[in-house]
């Protein structure tokens, strides 16, 4: 039997839990390929889900991490990925994609490119396999199945309970059912063991200590309360009326299609709840039937239901599972109202709580999201241990997975957590929201992957976490809060970060450091809540200092946020919570007669529209409601101020954002905005002269792959010879580094508008390091090696200049001995609302990765909504509905070199280094790029104006490459490729790292170094060349933040000119050099970080760096 197969099939834990990396160590490429063949055969025939999934993850890991290093030099050089396989991959036909890639591997021999494609295909198939099983399990939970069978209103077996159908004899209003639920906090951080892919394979390791809590925002709310509320009542209109008080939206849904349209508005969670509760069962989707008939069946002819949610303005990203709890509370109130719970009011029975949990999971799946099973923990009372359960005979999971989908909840009694301990915990713990909002999706995937691969250190960390859980339970019993603090701190600093280094960040570390410095022994521990830190966190203090700690923490967090706000994506101002353990879990009550009122925030949503209508035209129920509301405004303190609120809402005010518009205009003026060019672009865009499809080269253009002789490669002896030349030039002061740091890194933070250069992306040399620090550390090492102070330039823009300048100033230039100069941008663009044509082109014509079925449905719905937004906001209009900085854009890296000429920085540098002849230009995220003396020597010897570094292509390297276009060798941007498949015929991918011979390139601009002081001439020369460069229209994502930590992402149009198009400039000599992947790869997406850390890339970068001593 193959060696690796035993790791999957062995019943002996020692063998089964052995790390794949250990087992692969020392294997040759042939051995690894043999193992791959066995594993592939095995996974095709394996019936056990987890054996299949593990085999897939093994195959992924071998192709991603182990095989590329073991390949022969020829294999390492890369190969071609068949486009048809890639298309299968995009369409989620993973099996077909794998077969196609395997056939290519058999035909051409194993190589780096095909391994990257196989790794991607196996990875996606593995997650698809797991997700399919979770979905099947969620559907097959007893109590959920019937909803998938129901396809016609006449089959709806649910009826609204009679108590809710009796209008009040006084005012005719229907009673309101209100569900109030606490949220949950995870007292242990369970190492994400509750995510389904883990819990269902390793139930004995899935353990969570989960506490239900009431919440209030410190300094804002008078006290604590169950923060999550769901309201339901019958209405005399045949619609489903949904309202979210916190998001300020409401809608009347009159058709079934609207109920299943999740991303159309902000009511997706309410819709998911209505569906998961069986009110509109999932089986009826797409049936073409009538919602009114369905509602009539349940509540009577002409009647409908109204569902209102409220989370008391608890900000998003609290890590307290607010949204899952809200989903569960909404499901619960719907279930009670339709007789699916024994009791209309009061607490739920255990079986009912379990069903609410199952339905909440279903709702999350419908909404295209999903975390773990502990997130509905607030439905249960007090403190509880939630544990995975082994699947037994009779369970739907039996024979498929080792564990059941749903866990077991054991509520801790007073013997296990005495009341005194609970009180002391409340007196010690300060809960906060640091203000960061993070996408934890990639983290959950990484955790799953590492678990299934049994990565050595992570597996040990997981075991030690279980020990820490035991310690915390013991400490709870003994009332030892300090012991709990010590354990949670150890958990955070040890196992959690061993499993996922990205669970912490500089912001969190800064907070802990400052709190510890200020509170010394009174600070008893840090406690990470949920998926990642930076959002919800806990700090444990001695009870006497808690009040002071709450006040100080808010200040400390605000200070830390201020110092890092350009580097990290903050969604909101940090907040401190008040909290209390809730010993009841979710409860409901029936509000009747005068008490039948919705929450105060509901009325500003609904009343203005009613007041604008003729009173006589209102249905009697609405009239009665208005009367009741008016009366309540006069008597109820919680509705005090409502009149003023309504007045403000209904009467026109000065247009909002006038101040922001002013600052936008100032920014435009300050950064050289070219109004004439902008209007021209707008006119061209609207007329269809420019756009995504016009970016492309003509279809008649011939594109061929580069020939072997087109690309240079340095062997060891050539390197040695060139290195001497390069080192000598360095010592003569002939070279400098030019790092492009003007961009916002749209993909890095999904358009959050932070400075990517300052993002402390990873712990290197023992500390979190920013991109800028890493680049300077490489230059520092080089300077030491060459014995000369190598200058380093950074291009900046309106967005990045001031923060980078401040960052460097505050850190004394980061200990860099040589000159560090910033080259501020001299051009700026204003973002435009995209055209529907371009959005459709991007989403419908360009190849797109199809998502998992439900997620795709949600995405399609969102895209329709965004196309609607573009149309209603005005295609081609200025994008101004955001912070001023988010409405502007840098205009592409072509301008960075001309900027250097126009802003006088090159002139200044030449004054400092008159011998300067060569620049190494590279992107901020090309971490492996350094001023390698050997490459410098080669560049010098080539005599060319520009030499670009290229790498052999992997599947993920998308965006053009090196090609012969109509016979001319040049780099082509992905945007310009006439057809998608062309890219798959190009062996080399552009790294955008470029060696510049200053004098040659200046000549291409029609300049020489003596003319750099002539501002007019420089301006004219750069404009003249800019005119020859093609402008591309691109769509970028931009975040808009609103409410309490809410974020929306919009696509916006902007234009760019790109440096690589210099390779098409007649008369400028350009060359191309193939470099190793570690040197050339770019970090575009945070999801790449984990692989980057594991595949040796991070070690490579560290080896290039010398970190200055800490200041």
């Amino acid at each position, binding site marked *: 039997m193959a060696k690796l197969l035993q790791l999957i099939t062995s019943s002996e834990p020692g063998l089964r839990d052995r790390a794949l990396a250990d087992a692969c160590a020392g294997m040759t490429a042939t051995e690894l390929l043999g193992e791959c063949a066995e594993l592939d055969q095995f996974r095709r025939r394996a019936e056990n889900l987890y054996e299949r999934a593990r085999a897939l993850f093994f195959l992924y890991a071998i192709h991603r991490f182990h095989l590329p290093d073991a390949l022969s030099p020829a294999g390492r050089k890369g190969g071609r990925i068949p486009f048809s396989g890639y298309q299968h991959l995009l369409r989620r036909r993973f099996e077909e994609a794998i077969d196609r890639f395997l056939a290519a591997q058999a035909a051409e021999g194993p190589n780096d490119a095909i391994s990257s494609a196989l790794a991607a295909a196996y990875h996606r198939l593995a997650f698809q396999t797991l997700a399919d099983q979770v979905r099947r399990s969620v559907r097959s939970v*007893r*109590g*959920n*199945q*019937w*909803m998938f*069978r*129901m396809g016609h209103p*006449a*089959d*709806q*077996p*649910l*009826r609204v309970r009679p108590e809710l159908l009796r209008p009040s004899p006084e005012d005719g209003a229907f009673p309101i059912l209100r569900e109030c639920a606490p949220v949950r906090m995870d007292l242990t951080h369970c190492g994400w063991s509750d995510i389904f892919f883990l819990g269902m394979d390793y139930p004995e390791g899935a353990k969570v200590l989960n506490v239900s809590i009431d919440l209030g925002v410190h300094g804002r709310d008078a006290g604590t309360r169950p923060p999550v509320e769901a309201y339901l009542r019958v209405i005399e209109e045949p619609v489903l009326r949904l309202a979210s008080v916190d998001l300020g939206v409401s809608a009347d849904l009159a058709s079934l299609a609207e109920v299943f349209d999740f991303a159309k508005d902000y009511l997706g969670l309410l819709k998911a709840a209505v569906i998961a509760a*069986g009110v509109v069962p999932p089986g009826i989707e797409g049936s073409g039937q009538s919602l009114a008939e369905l509602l009539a069946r349940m509540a009577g002819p002409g009647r409908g239901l109204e569902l209102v949610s409220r989370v008391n303005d608890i900000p998003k990203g609290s890590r307290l599972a607010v949204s899952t709890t809200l989903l569960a509370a909404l499901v619960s109130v719907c*279930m009670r109202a*339709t*007789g*699916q719970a024994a009791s209309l009011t009061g607490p739920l029975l255990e*079986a009912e709580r379990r*069903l609410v949990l199952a339905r909440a999971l279903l709702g999350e799946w419908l909404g295209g999201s999903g975390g773990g099973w502990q997130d509905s923990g607030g439905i249960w009372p007090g403190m509880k241990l939630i544990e995975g359960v082994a699947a037994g005979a009779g369970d739907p999971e039996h024979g498929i997975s080792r564990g059941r989908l749903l866990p077991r909840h054991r509520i801790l009694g007073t013997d296990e957590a005495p009341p005194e301990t609970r009180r002391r915990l409340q007196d010690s713990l300060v809960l906060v929201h640091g203000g960061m909002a993070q996408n934890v999706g990639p983290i959950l995937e990484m955790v799953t992957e590492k678990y299934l691969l049994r990565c050595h250190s992570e597996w040990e960390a997981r075991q030690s976490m279980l020990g820490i859980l035991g310690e915390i339970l013991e400490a709870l019993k003994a009332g030892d809060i300090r012991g709990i603090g010590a354990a949670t701190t150890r958990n955070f600093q040890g196992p959690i970060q061993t499993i996922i280094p990205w669970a912490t960040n500089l912001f969190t570390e800064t907070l802990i450091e400052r709190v510890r410095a200020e509170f010394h022994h009174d600070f008893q521990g840090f406690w990470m809540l949920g998926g990642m830190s930076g959002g919800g966190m806990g700090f444990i203090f001695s009870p006497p200092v808690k009040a002071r700690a709450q006040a100080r923490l808010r200040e400390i967090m605000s200070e830390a946020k201020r110092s890092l706000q350009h580097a990290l994506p903050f969604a909101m101002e940090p907040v401190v919570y008040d909290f209390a353990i809730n010993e009841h879990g979710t409860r409901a009550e029936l509000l009747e007669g005068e008490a039948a009122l919705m929450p105060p925030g509901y009325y500003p949503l609904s009343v203005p529209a009613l007041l604008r209508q003729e009173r006589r035209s209102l249905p009697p129920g609405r009239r009665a409601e208005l009367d009741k509301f008016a009366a309540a405004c006069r008597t109820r303190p919680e509705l005090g101020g409502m009149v003023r609120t309504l007045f403000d809402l209904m009467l026109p005010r000065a247009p909002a954002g006038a101040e922001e518009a002013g600052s936008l205009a100032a920014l435009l003026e300050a950064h050289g905005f070219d109004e004439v060019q902008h209007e021209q672009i707008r006119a061209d865009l609207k007329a269809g002269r420019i756009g995504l499809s016009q970016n492309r080269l003509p279809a008649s253009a011939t594109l061929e792959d580069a020939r072997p002789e087109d690309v240079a490669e340095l062997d060891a002896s050539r390197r040695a010879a060139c290195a001497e030349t390069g080192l000598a030039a360095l010592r003569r002061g002939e070279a400098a580094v030019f790092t492009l740091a003007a961009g916002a890194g749209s993909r890095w933070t999904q358009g959050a508008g932070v400075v990517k250069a300052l993002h402390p992306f990873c712990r290197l040399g023992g500390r979190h390091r920013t991109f800028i620090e890493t680049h300077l550390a490489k230059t520092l090492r080089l300077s030491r090696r060459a014995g000369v102070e190598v200058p380093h330039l950074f291009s900046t823009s309106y967005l990045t200049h001031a923060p980078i300048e401040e960052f460097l100033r505050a850190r004394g230039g980061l200990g860099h001995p040589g000159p560090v100069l910033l080259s501020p941008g001299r051009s700026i663009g204003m973002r435009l609302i995209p055209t529907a044509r371009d959005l459709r082109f991007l989403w419908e014509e360009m190849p797109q990765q199809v998502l998992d079925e439900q997620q795709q449905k949600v995405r399609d719905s969102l895209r329709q909504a965004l196309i609607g937004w573009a149309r209603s906001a005005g295609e081609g209009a200025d994008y101004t509905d955001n912070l001023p900085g988010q409405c502007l854009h840098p205009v592409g890296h072509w301008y960075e070199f001309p900027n250097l000429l126009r802003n006088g920085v090159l002139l200044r540098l030449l004054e400092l280094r008159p011998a300067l002849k060569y620049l190494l230009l590279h992107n901020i995220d090309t971490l492996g790029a350094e001023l390698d003396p050997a490459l410098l020597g080669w560049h010098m010897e080539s005599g060319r104006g520009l030499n670009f570094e290229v790498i052999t292509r992997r599947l993920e390297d998308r965006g053009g490459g090196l090609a012969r276009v109509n016979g001319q060798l040049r780099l082509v941007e992905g945007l310009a490729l006439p057809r998608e498949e062309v890219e798959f015929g190009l062996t080399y991918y552009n790294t955008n790292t470029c060696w510049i011979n200053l004098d040659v390139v200046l000549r291409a601009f029609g300049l020489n170094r003596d003319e750099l002081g002539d501002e007019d001439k420089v301006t004219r020369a750069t404009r003249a060349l800019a005119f020859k460069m093609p402008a591309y229209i691109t769509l970028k994502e931009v975040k808009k933040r609103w409410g309490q930590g809410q974020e929306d992402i919009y696509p916006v149009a902007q234009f760019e000119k790109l440096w690589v198009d210099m390779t098409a400039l007649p008369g400028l000599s350009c060359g191309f050099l193939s470099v190793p992947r570690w040197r050339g790869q770019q970090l575009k997406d945070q999801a790449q970080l984990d692989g980057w850390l594991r595949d040796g890339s991070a070690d490579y970068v560290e080896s290039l760096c010398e970190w200055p001593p800490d200041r």
Partner: protein
Amino acid sequence: MEIKKAIITAAGPTQRTLPLQTLVDRDGKAKTALQILLEEIGAAGIEDICVVVGSGDASAFAAAAGEGGARRLTFVEQREPLGYGHAVHCAREFAAGQPVLLLVGDHLYVSGGPRRCAQQLVEAAEAEDCCVSAVQATHESKLPYYGAVGGSLVPGRTGMYLVSQVLEKPTPTQAEQELIVPGLRAGHYLCFFGMHALTPAVMELLGEQLSEADPGRTHLSQALARVARRERYLACELRGRRYDIGVKYGLLAAQLALALDGDDRDEILSSLVELLARRGRG
């Protein structure tokens, strides 16, 4: 066990007049629904029958039973609408500790064969010597109208189930969790047929239920659920169908079923064909 007594419940506020409706029976004779029920019971060999009626309804029912029928009947009034279980319990003195056949007054039964439904049930109960409820596999969309049972097939028997759970008008959620019966089609549950052969224990349990503080509306299903825990309790799928004459067009459907099962089958079929043909020309 030998069943010699039967109880018909007809006290529900919405069903007080239903047994008084007139239909043409299988033999072509016009009869009240009550008379048809009495014949159903009579075919099972039971002559001693009690009808539980609402206050003041006894005389109307006596008239509807016809001369021959009324002589066999005992009337008991349910003075307050305290639930179906209470209505049944009103007849406890009539039952006098004997097993009884219980029928609802708003259902008619058509077996389509020589052995009528009540007869099948009584024979089953006597053979099994235990409480037996007639059930029919029913689609989940009808769950709001019926009590339903969960259980397992009695080994080696077709259509006979050992009951482990009884729920009154369950939601599909509850039904799926507690009433799944192997062998039934997906989304189908064993719902009551409106006909039960009850042991004396049921009356006792109803009495216990009613003596509890604040019993609310008392359901027979609750007592039957307790029976299932206390003694052997079976559910039996009968050959035949029930017709609820209380629902919209229920009376019409019952009439058609009776007519198509009887002597005038051809005449009715001809009328229907003619009706359809005229409609088609229409």
